């Protein structure tokens, strides 16, 4: 009887574990099945590198959106990565543990704020400030970068802190014993030892930034346009799918699935990079 129970539990756990995996598989298959035929029919080169997106004329070039997604993500990195990494260093190396234990969960709460709220703040507060001080429509690449930069902070900070704290105390003590100051110890020993973890945190933040949709639709302005300045309005890959999905039929709908394929590939690449970086850290230790 006991043995039977043991086996049943094993089975049940196995099913739950595979349900997550099969979910991923089904989604990937579905998107590929809907999107790939279009890509081959329309032509990969034309689809990826043409900047004419006129669905009603049968023109589907997503180049401006690829460029926009990359710029928005890069912008979010420029805003979020330094803030996140330096914040993590301060919290783990310069802040007493009990204080850090209060601040870290508070920062992680940022991740619990729904993205539509970030978008709303972007539209109501950030965009008017940008419009008044720098010109342009306000809803722009810059606004999207800043909002996304803030949105990725919890990811970057909490994973960076974890990896910095994972550096054995003896490393720091060795450095202090040689007469190094706290900053010297931090940047020459601790950061070096936790580098791959910090890089992984940034790459995971990157994945979150490139996949974010709601907040970006609200603050980026959504014009299909290769931006010349950060003040120009842009449309990302995710925004393109969400904006036009409800109206799309036929080829147009397939083109949106194909946009999803491109997005899926980009995100798989980013996540693989992150897991390689994390594994490297494991091997080193």
């Amino acid at each position, binding site marked *: 009887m006991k043995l039977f129970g043991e086996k049943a539990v094993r089975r049940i756990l196995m099913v739950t574990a595979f349900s997550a995996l099969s979910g991923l598989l089904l989604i990937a298959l579905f998107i590929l099945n809907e999107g790939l035929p279009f890509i081959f029919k329309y032509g990969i080169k034309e689809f990826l590198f043409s900047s004419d997106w*006129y*669905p*009603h004329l049968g023109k589907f070039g997503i180049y401006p959106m690829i460029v926009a997604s990359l710029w928005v993500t890069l912008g979010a990195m420029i805003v979020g990565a330094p803030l996140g990494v330096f914040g993590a260093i301060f919290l783990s190396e310069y802040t007493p543990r009990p204080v850090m234990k209060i601040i870290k969960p508070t920062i992680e709460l940022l991740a619990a704020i729904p993205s539509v709220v970030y978008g709303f703040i972007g*539209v*109501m507060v950030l*965009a*008017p400030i940008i*419009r008044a001080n720098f*010109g342009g*429509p*306000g*809803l722009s690449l810059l606004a999207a970068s800043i909002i996304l930069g803030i949105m990725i902070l919890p990811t970057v900070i909490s994973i960076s802190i974890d990896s910095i704290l994972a550096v054995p105390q003896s490393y720091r003590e060795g450095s202090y014993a040689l007469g190094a100051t706290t900053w010297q110890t931090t940047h020459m020993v601790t950061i070096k030892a936790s580098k791959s973890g910090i890089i992984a945190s940034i790459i995971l933040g990157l994945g979150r930034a490139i996949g974010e949709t709601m907040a970006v*639709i609200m603050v980026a*302005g*959504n*014009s*299909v*346009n290769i931006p010349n300045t950060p003040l*120009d*309005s842009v*449309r990302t890959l995710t925004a393109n799918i969400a*904006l*036009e999905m*409800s*109206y*799309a*039929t036929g080829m*147009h709908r397939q083109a949106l699935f194909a946009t999803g394929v491109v997005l899926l590939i980009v995100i798989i690449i980013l996540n693989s990079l992150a897991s390689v970086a994390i594994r490297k850290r494991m091997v080193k230790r």
Partner: protein
Amino acid sequence: MKKIMLMSFVLIAALLMGGCGKGKASLTLAGSTAFQPFAEKLADQYMNINPDISVTVQGGGSAVGIQSANSGAAQIGMADLVVLPAEAEGLTATVVAKDGIAIVVNPANKISGLTTEQVRDIFNGKITNWKDVGGINAPITVVSREAGSGTRSSFEEIVGNINLKRDALIQDSNGTIRETVANDANSVGYLSHGLINEKIKALKVDDQECSTEAIIAGNYKLVRPIFLLVKGNLEGEIKKFIDYILSDEGQNTIKADGLLPAK
């Protein structure tokens, strides 16, 4: 613990049964975001008169209206296009209202009107500064709807020869267009006449005000019909509801909130 689980189970069951237990007939409308608020109001009034029926209204846009009427996801599709596309061929279309498309700017903008020609040039990117149409020296921010929107295709159809400039902002509903224009002193957009409020200003087009009177008189030219689309013939509860919308009471509701009666 068990008690809590039991209680929540009962609660969920009660909620589920409340939704469908009484065997109410139900009607679903989906489509045009321009007609959505009117449909909601009409549905409320209709349900007050006929407590036995529940009418649900969803948005999604005109293409969704046509699609869901075709697929049966909604019994009635709402579409606000000047010309119905080929997919709507098999559907029975009833014009229930007419709607003006207002060209709107921020109330801070001193301009009071544009010609059709100027509207076309602004949306095509030929005119990019307000001073070229009699305003202050400031760049024009053009706000448009996404490809596929009924308001957009009607607007482009009526104004004619529009090839929207690339850096126009795109918003995905009448409401967000209004917010964007209300927030940006240099912007111009277009939206359903029924949704004009004090936060934005409607411009005269070719010297004709976008008012109910001008539209009824046929003077204001940016007008499109609003269709209710039904698969097959009008009958049963669907016919009763559409008849209600076309009745004096229904048409008055439509008129009171800024749309125009069908006839």
